[in-house]
């Protein structure tokens, strides 16, 4: 049966080449250059998005229970910057000034910060979990934070929700507790399997929500109404010192998240692929989860459960500009901030002077998109 072979020595591959590959022209990287994120594209897109954010913020300042004319608005803003406050020339201008600088401006800025944070956290979690639908809500981190804040309220941390310094701390503590539980439950070997993590998040969410409902039901009706409004996601006008606190806190966390952009690109390929490319996946996951809990805890304690921004914004931005996280993360942050400023303006003015919780607006905008993804873009979901 067997044909005799001349020798058992290893044969050269050359003997087995079925065809000779044509020698390729020398590579200059031009093909690559045209198909990747470049510096100029990054600067252009971020510049345009920043400009849009500024314009939208001016529009948001204009609208309210009482629209303020753009000219006057700009004059007041300029006046505030150049510190000639003494030239307040009459009662009506003074009221405008107060409304603009003490009520609308801090609220618009807070909306922007919260939107930035939610979208950034969404981007990061989606890459890490390789799930385009992931956001802090899926993991149970937000409901953990909300539960923390709710427990704070139950223990008497004040009648107003946001002015109290204790509540952000409670929210952060709740977020961290949720995170530790998720991490512990999902870690059944030396590494953290991503699917069990998602499932754990879903289960925790159910438990935390039940506990929050329980706390809400035993509070006295006044406070329980306030809590419901907060849970649905509400922005209020913070004091400037409070705003600066939030700004510093979120900026530091977001800068630390931005350090991970290149690792995120590679993590999005899959965990084994990322490890085989030299990413310390365990360390990256750990630091990303902790930063996520910090940001989510802070955001939930100031604005409650504003949903869908963390899911919808990164998704839409990714479709528009591509998946490279070096652009995706800052661009999503800008778009998320702009989106929430706009949504909050609608919430303030839709049936003014009554306010609609902004979480309802974002859910109504994001929910249909979510359904669209589930029904028609199944191929894109894990």
């Amino acid at each position, binding site marked *: 049966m067997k044909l005799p072979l001349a020798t058992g020595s290893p044969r*050269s591959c050359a003997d087995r080449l079925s065809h000779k590959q044509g020698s390729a022209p020398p590579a*200059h990287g031009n093909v690559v250059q045209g198909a990747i994120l470049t510096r100029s594209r990054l600067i252009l897109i971020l510049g345009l998005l920043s400009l849009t954010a500024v314009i939208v913020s001016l529009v948001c300042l204009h609208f309210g229970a009482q629209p303020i004319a753009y000219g006057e608005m700009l004059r007041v803003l300029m006046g505030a910057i150049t510190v000639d406050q003494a030239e307040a020339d009459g009662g009506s201008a003074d009221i405008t000034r107060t409304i603009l600088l003490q009520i609308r401006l801090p609220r618009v800025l807070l909306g922007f910060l919260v939107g930035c944070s939610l979208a950034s956290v969404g981007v990061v979690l989606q890459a890490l979990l390789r799930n385009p639908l992931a956001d802090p809500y899926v993991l149970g981190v937000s409901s953990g934070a909300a539960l923390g804040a709710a427990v704070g309220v139950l223990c008497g941390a004040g009648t107003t929700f946001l002015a109290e310094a204790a509540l952000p701390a409670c929210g952060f503590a709740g977020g961290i507790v949720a995170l530790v539980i998720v991490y512990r439950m999902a870690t059944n070997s030396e590494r953290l399997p991503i699917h069990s993590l998602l499932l754990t998040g879903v289960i925790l969410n159910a438990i935390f929500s039940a506990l929050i409902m329980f706390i809400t039901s035993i509070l006295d009706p006044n406070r329980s109404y306030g809590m419901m409004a907060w849970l649905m996601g509400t922005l209020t006008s913070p004091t400037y010192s409070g705003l600066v606190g939030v700004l510093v806190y979120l900026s530091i966390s977001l800068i630390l998240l931005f*350090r991970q952009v*290149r690792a995120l690109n590679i993590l999005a390929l899959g965990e084994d692929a990322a490890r085989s490319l030299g990413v310390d996946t365990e360390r990256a996951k750990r630091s990303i989860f902790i930063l996520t809990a910090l940001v989510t805890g802070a955001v939930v304690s100031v604005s409650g459960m504003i949903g869908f921004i963390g899911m919808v914004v990164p998704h839409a931005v990714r479709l528009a500009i591509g998946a*490279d996280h070096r652009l995706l993360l800052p661009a999503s942050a800008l778009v998320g901030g702009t989106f929430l400023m706009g949504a909050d303006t609608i919430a303030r003015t839709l049936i003014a002077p009554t306010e609609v919780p902004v979480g309802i607006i974002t859910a109504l905008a994001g929910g249909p998109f979510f359904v669209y993804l589930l029904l028609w873009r199944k191929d894109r979901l894990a």
Partner: protein
Amino acid sequence: MRGVQESQPGGGNEPCASGLVRPCDAYEVHSLRFRYQSTDSSSSPWILDDVSFQVSQGEVLGIVGPNGSGKTSLLKLLARLASPQQGGITLFGRDLTAMGQDEIARLVGVVPQDTPQLFPFTVAETVLMGRFPHRPRNRWGSGFGWESGEDMAITEDAMRTMDVAHLAQRAVTDLSGGERQRTMIARALAQTPNVLLLDEPTAFLDLQHQVEIGSVLCRLKDERGLTVVLISHDLNLVSQYCDRLLLLAEGQVVRLGTPDDVIEPLVLEQVYRCQVLIDRHPTSGVPRVTLPGRQSTGNK
């Protein structure tokens, strides 16, 4: 055809002997035992049980065996994506566990089993990720770093080698299975590795691209002394392109040797539990495996 090849270094009968001193094997695997961790560790069976072998530099080793025989686990151990409970692996003479994941990534390129991609990176961006282990160190942690011109050139070269340069701007989410697979191999090549580990590299490829991948691997082996370890279910393909085969069954090495040694009727029938016909490839003379078909001819 052959004349062209023989003018190249290492193109003769001794693929690895182009004046190079061979200080050590690419891989040395020593009585490896491995199982996945479970809560009840006593009952989980060994995925790999007492596996030992060497891979020489510039060799193409094919790992074959039935489903569930531990092939993919073995490949993961070689890439240190998992750690063995017992035994050891050395990579170019160094203990694998003593090396950083980063260091391994500069030496070993891994092409995992095909998985659908979820995020619309372009093909060029994906291949460029292979340059990640070579990124310069700075205080920016894993780095925002823009890729250098050298990175671009190496990436483009890898893309041309794997015939995906024309797809540069396409999103990996929109590729066919074969295009995606070639993109992933290109990404591993962009790492400029010394060793390439591939899990079912030809599973989704049509005939033309199967032949192309085999030829490309051989060419890289001849030109750059690349060491290749690949898993495949296609016995004819590995017979054609591999120097040696490692036949695994139930976590143990059944045979290790040239295709002639391993692809033998009795061995395959015992391992795969079905009858096969084995004859010779009409031009290359390597063993060729055929399923017996519906009509039982006079096979043994």
